[in-house]
């Protein structure tokens, strides 16, 4: 696939073209802000409006302005010839720890006051590797050590941007919850504090919800009286101050529907437990992550309007997740549960198209519905489906272009665009895709090779439990913990 150089286009895009069909030993193209580009004559998989053969997609300043045939653009707009290629929305991974600085603050069962937005590593080459798999947006999550973890960060993979530029600013806030073995082992068994059991997990959630409601009442009463006192100091007595409590304010925002919950979970009973808790407190529009037994309670989830974000065929890595099926996603989908396929892995994220294909293989759902599970469905779970997740006029120019049907094992992602800018081009791939600023002057070649080996060796052992080992190493428990 080639990019036709416009007569006036300068800079990095030109450099990419000139170096076509070679490995490039330099810093990859870095994000430069929203761009304009015309993608010509591809098979456009809109996801929401069917497949459109021989169709163009015209992106202006990062936003899709036109989808149709024989579209034209000013001469200075670069053109990508997608003849024979498949053009689809950039993939969205609803569960990732791709480039966190730290993943788990595992010292407290509730850490809602913390935000992963303050733990983003903008220099991680893993972002480029994910772009190579066609991924453009991720839910960068806190780990699953705590019943209520930190708030997450929805990121666009604007490789080269800083920690703020990577953030999908328009995306609503989400937060990580976790049920089951991870929080009970870390806190109950690890340090002797609640929760030690699944019953305790529920208690922790209900208690903090109650605390937040009471806090909200007291804080608001204080602010109201403070304002009245400042207006009429001689008539209204000053109030006893109630300190702002960041943790409880975040919990309060969950109860008010301002923050979307993404909950690590496996067993059907604990999933139903949380559905019931949320029903009691009026929490809506939440997503169960992993949810390997969710298929058992699919109708209940559908009725509650809950979402599910699952692995295609990954289970049996610990006791609570011995029972699962590769039909999980399909069963959920058929029952009307908005379902996505996620990676939770820096390796798996590079071929989420294969993971989606497995749902077709096992569950027999349509190809478009399978692709929806890695595009529009996770977009809905993250509250960004009005901006990304499908190819529609007015949505962001986040696009992956494939050599063939993305569900084919032979298909490869050839090009990935974020906000209309090409940030991955297989014809001019970068052998060493690290950013210049990420290169250490004192790292040995051998150490770098070890890092690369680690990055390609497969699913990580410790993704969701990263940083949680500290508790076990402190003496109370020395057994190996596992991921997820």
């Amino acid at each position, binding site marked *: 696939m080639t990019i036709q150089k416009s007569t006036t286009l300068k800079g990095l895009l030109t450099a990419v073209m000139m170096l076509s069909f070679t490995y490039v*030993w*330099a810093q990859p193209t870095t994000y430069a802000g929203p761009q304009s580009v015309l993608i010509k004559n591809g098979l456009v998989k809109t996801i929401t409006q069917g497949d459109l053969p021989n169709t163009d997609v015209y992106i202006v300043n990062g936003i899709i302005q036109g989808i149709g045939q024989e579209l034209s653009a000013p001469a200075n707009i670069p053109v990508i010839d997608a003849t024979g290629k498949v053009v689809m929305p950039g993939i969205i991974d609803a569960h990732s720890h791709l480039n966190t*600085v*730290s993943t*788990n*603050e*595992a*010292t*407290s*069962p*509730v*850490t809602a*006051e*913390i*935000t*992963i937005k*303050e*733990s*983003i*590593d903008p*220099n991680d080459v893993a972002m480029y590797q994910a772009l190579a798999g066609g991924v453009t947006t991720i839910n960068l999550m806190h780990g699953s050590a705590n019943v209520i973890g*930190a708030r997450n960060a929805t990121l666009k993979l604007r490789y080269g941007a*800083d*920690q*703020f530029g990577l953030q999908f600013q328009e995306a609503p806030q989400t937060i990580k919850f976790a049920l089951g073995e991870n929080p009970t082992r870390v806190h109950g068994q*690890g*340090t*002797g*504090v609640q929760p030690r059991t699944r019953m305790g997990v529920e208690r922790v959630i209900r208690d903090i919800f109650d605390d937040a409601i009471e806090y909200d009442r007291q804080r608001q009463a204080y602010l109201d009286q403070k304002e009245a*006192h400042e207006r009429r*100091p*001689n008539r209204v*007595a*000053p*109030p*006893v*101050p*109630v*300190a*702002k*409590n*960041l*943790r409880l304010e975040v919990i309060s925002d969950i109860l008010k529907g301002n923050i979307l919950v993404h909950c690590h979970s496996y067993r059907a009973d604990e999933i139903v437990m949380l559905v019931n808790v949320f029903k009691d407190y009026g929490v809506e529009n939440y997503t169960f992550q992993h949810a390997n037994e969710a298929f058992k309670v699919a109708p209940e989830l559908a009725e509650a309007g809950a979402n599910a974000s699952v692995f295609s065929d990954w289970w049996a890595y610990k006791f609570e997740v011995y029972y699962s099926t590769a039909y999980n996603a399909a069963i959920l989908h058929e029952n009307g549960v908005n379902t996505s396929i996620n990676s939770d892995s820096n390796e798996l994220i590079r071929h989420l198209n294969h993971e989606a294909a497995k749902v077709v293989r096992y569950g027999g759902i349509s190809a478009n519905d399978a692709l929806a599970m890695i595009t529009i469905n996770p977009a809905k779970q993250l509250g960004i489906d009005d901006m990304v997740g499908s190819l529609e006029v007015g949505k962001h120019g986040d696009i992956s272009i494939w050599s063939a049907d993305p569900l084919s094992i032979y298909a490869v992602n050839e090009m990935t665009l974020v906000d209309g800018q090409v940030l991955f081009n297989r014809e001019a791939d970068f*052998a*060493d895709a*690290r950013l*210049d*600023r990420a*290169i*250490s*002057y*004192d*790292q*040995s*070649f051998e150490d*770098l090779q070890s890092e690369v080996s680690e990055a390609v060796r497969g699913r990580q052992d410790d993704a969701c439990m990263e*940083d949680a080992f*500290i*508790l076990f190493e*402190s003496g109370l428990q020395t057994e190996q913990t596992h991921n997820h």
Partner: protein
Amino acid sequence: MSGTSWILGLTLLMGSSLTATAQTTLPSYGVQGVNVIQSDGSVKTNQTIHWADGVIRRVSTDETLPSSARTLVEGDSLLILPAFIDGLNHAGMPDAVAPSSYGNPDRPSDPTYDRAGIQPHRVAESEFDVSHSSIKAHQSAGFGAVNSSHQGRMLPGQSSMFFTQAQEAFSGYESPLYESALGYVFQFEGAGGRAYPSTDMAIMARFKQLLYDAEALQQHIRYVEGSGAEQMEAPQRDAVLESLFPLLNGEKPLMASVDSPEDAERVLLLADEFDFSVIFATSADLTPIASKLTQSATPVLFQFDKPEAPDWIQKEEKEAAEEESEAQDETTDETATEDETTVENEEPSEEELSEEEKAFRTRQASAWDAKKGALRSMLDAGLMIGAYGFDGKVTDFYEALRFYHEQGGVTSTELLNILSSNTAMILGIERLGTLAEGSLANMIVMHGQDWLSEDSKLLFTVSNGHVITIDND
């Protein structure tokens, strides 16, 4: 005076200077016929400096000194510079208390302030020990003042400025303290072990909550002290929270130690939310966020550690130097044979390297160039740079200075500026760092032509008017 005679003069004077430091009244000293280098790089030749009671009284070409003043030293090739200032250090402070010594809290989520490393109420003078070996090391390197703080974790305490003047000057409750509690030291150091906070993101959250709590307590105290609150309950006083009021009110800066531009940006988020000023302490290159720093007038204290080049670059440089040396030998020794000039090479030659490793080296060489140029780059970006973190190794310190001068493109004037007047300005103590009449008598006396040269020798460090004779052996 010849070289021999000034050494003789120096020897004779050493005894009197040490005796003088034991006096309560600060001595009056003078130096005549010296070259005075100001931190702005200007050089005045054949100057006479007189100081008394810890203050520079006169800098002039007038060779006469008051009769009460002792002549410190006479001789050729004497340089006088402002003494260096260490902008942030733990010099003179006790070793850090290991988190484990506090034990693991019953509730890891709610450790005590001490266990969490939240100790902003501690001011350095409570435990500062001028007889500590680190203070002697500072004297030996030319530091006349040091801004010291407790060691610790997230918020180890408030730093205070101390003179490095000799221990003998003090007895009883006297102290070399110049100014107390200049700012709050902050670092991304978790509580350690099973205690909150353990990650940078949790440190951010814990810091915010501390200030929210301090905000409420301050408000409560104000209400109770004001009118209309006769019925109000008494606030629960809290020394840790109350120690943070000046930070909350924007009266004192946060002195944040950071390892990367990203960490610095995180600290700036806190500063933006609570509207306090920040002084960064780092050995990292903060050029990528220079515009943010200049906009907020945020200064940077830079640590002079000499970085080590990658092994392969060191080897190449060594070989190049040997080849050059041998080439010179060949021109002087025409009998040298080709065999004798062969260099043994155990590493793979450039041709034997994989394409991948060659490319790796190319990019690493650029990273090394960037590291060498980090200080230059920050200066060019308009950042206000001072110095901090002298680790007690005098030779390494001067090697690091020469490294940034010779390989990093920083002039000796800029280095002196960074080490003296800039640091003084950043810390708001402008009577330090300059050699003007009325300035505090903190200076160093060197023998040599160029203060940065390896051949120059530091003879005296003068701190608060006291003379410390440097043992160069």
